[in-house]
């Protein structure tokens, strides 16, 4: 019963986020009222520092945020997990150092520098996705390898090897289902980190879109005392998304 309501609420939320740009009463960029108008006088949640409708900006920004974060979380955690699994299952001894040492080195470069570099080379949303993905690959790979190593020596994996299963089956059907728990948890954390890195990139002047929620937070911060809603609404949005994403990830395992 409660579960059903939760699922429905989640779907409604997803719908709002994805259809947001169509639902928004105003454009994301046009001023509609004096800056920092409180809720009521200028839209449900008031207006931001340029007099733009907070509700409309939140509605416009949800889709880019969700897609950016999801894509980069999947790319980062997915690639990381793939590398980790391959390393754990590889038969050749050189695979481990060849794949993992460079990743460890990459892990040692502060993510902020990685983001700066990638965004310099690719100064758009794709760059942001790449930056977040690159920043999460090393840790995801470690998590995946550690999890897969527990499973690698199990008799059913050896049986599958002995009957000549392809590596896709070995990874996808023998090992993955057993490490899906930690990987899903990792994916959930990656998603939140992605949202957060996107926001942080905005904080450092590296934002890549008009109105994704990270940018809204960054923009609303100086005027938070004047118009708290402009800050609280996107923060709440991100929090809800994060919780929902993690619940989903846990469900899937």
């Amino acid at each position, binding site marked *: 019963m409660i579960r059903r309501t939760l699922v429905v609420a989640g779907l409604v939320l997803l719908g709002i986020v994805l259809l947001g740009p169509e639902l928004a009463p105003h454009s994301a960029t046009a*001023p509609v009222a004096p800056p*920092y108008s409180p809720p009521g006088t200028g839209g449900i949640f008031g207006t931001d520092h340029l007099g733009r409708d907070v509700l409309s900006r939140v509605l416009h920004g949800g889709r880019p945020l969700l897609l950016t974060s999801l894509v980069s979380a999947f790319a980062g955690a997915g690639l990381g997990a793939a590398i980790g699994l391959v390393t754990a299952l590889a038969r050749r001894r050189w695979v481990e150092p060849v794949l993992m040492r460079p990743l460890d080195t990459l892990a040692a470069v502060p993510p902020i520098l990685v983001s700066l570099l990638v965004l310099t080379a690719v100064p758009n949303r794709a760059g942001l996705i790449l930056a977040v993905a690159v920043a999460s690959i090393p840790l995801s790979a470690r998590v995946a390898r550690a999890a897969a190593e527990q499973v690698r020596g199990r008799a059913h994996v050896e049986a599958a090897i002995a009957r000549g299963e392809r590596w896709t089956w070995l990874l996808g059907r023998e090992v993955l289902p057993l490490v899906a728990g930690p990987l899903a948890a990792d994916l959930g954390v990656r998603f939140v980190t992605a949202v957060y890195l996107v926001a942080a990139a905005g904080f450092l*002047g*590296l934002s890549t879109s008009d109105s994704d929620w990270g940018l809204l937070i960054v923009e609303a911060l*100086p*005027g938070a*005392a004047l118009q708290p809603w402009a800050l609280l609404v996107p923060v709440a949005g991100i929090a809800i998304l994060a919780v929902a994403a993690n619940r989903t990830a846990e469900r899937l395992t």
Partner: protein
Amino acid sequence: GTSAPASAPVAGAGTSAARRGGVLRAVFTGGGAGESLDPYAGGSPIDFVRHDVLFDSLFTLDNAEVVPGLALAAEPAPDGRSFVLRLREGVRWHDGSTFTAQDVAYSFRYMNAPERAYPSQLGSFVDSAAVRVRDPLTLEVPTKQALGDPALFLAAFPAKMVKDGATSFTAATAVGTGAYRVTAFEAGREARLARFDGYWGGAAPADELVLLSLTDPQAKVNTVLTGQSDFAGDIPFTTAKTGVANADLEIRTAGENNRTAFGFVLNPALKPFDDPRVRKAVRLAIDRQALVDTILLGYGSVGNDLLCAGAKYFAAKEPLARDLDKARGLVREAGAEGAEVTIRTAEYEIGYNASTQLLAEQLKAIGLVVKPQIVGPAEFFRPEAVAAAHGVSFSSGAVPLAVMYGRLTGFPGLAFPDERLKTAFGTAIASTDEGVRAQAWAEVQDVMFDRGNTIVWGQADVLSLARKSVAGITVRDQAKYPYLGKAGLA
């Protein structure tokens, strides 16, 4: 969330006079580890404030007028190619020794040496290597181009005097002639300065001045709100709008003559802004009042597209009235409808990126598609990038016209190529006759107002947050870097 402003900003430096004694703690935007006690090494606001009380210039500005500092007079030769500098007598360094012409000659060499992190731009005008000491209080200074009013240049460009032979500027070794001497310093954190009782301009009121360095605007405000400091320079408009609910504190403005110009410079070398009609159309199309109300939250006034409001010679023309029909017509005539233009901007002042976004919205109405190109402050002035953009956001304090137009003429992408402007500018710099200079500056600004490439949509108040008892804060150069040599507690 419903905090009504406790009070509108008050003007000035505090109601009462500063009394002698006490410790004044003031916080300014810092430059982190890059800060320095060397007046030619640090480039952040707190560096300027600190340098101003530790070191003196030969001349300073006071209400846009040049007043004598360590020098009493700079007398140009008739052709303007050199000047004679007469120094003040009886000035002492913090270490007790006497200030002489040797110090000045050394300072000229020091400030322009290529290994300086921030060499003085005075080097473009003064031939520092050829400075000659006539006697302990007189020097002869050759110039690289004719200067009609050398004192103005000595006041407007950084030209702090350091002691002959000084190479090291640590808390123990930095020696100036200013109202305060340094007792402790850590870059990016704080400087502790003690009153210099032998100051030639009269001893400062406060016993000690503590300059605190922070980079986050809200953090600066918080120090005053929580009693960690007495004065925060250059605070965000939002803080003023929110107001402070503390009867001991007040928000101050530096006044009408000390505002910061907010605007854009259009690139006259690129389409569509190579066409004066399009430049004019932009100036006709922008909603100045909306920008002032939104970006400045009303703290300021509309601008008339000319830089240096508040400086001497500034032409206080009436801003162009908004006329969208006419603007659209001009754009159509120029065949620039639907043109895509990139405006490069960085948040080196709060509100720059926002003003560019708002500009983009406003210019939609006349068929120009503006793409804000938001970058970090460190890369903003990369020459190739500026030259490739159709415009940049731009800001300036009430600096002398010679400084501002001098800067603009040298920069690809910002310089405005116009014969009449060039001639008038040359005369304005070189003429030794005050009347001729005034005439020439008027002409420079006529050209700029008629067809120029600068847009100044607003003049922003410079706000600060202060304990009510803080008194005696004055402006010499720019209001963002006030002079604290006469400041103290009432």
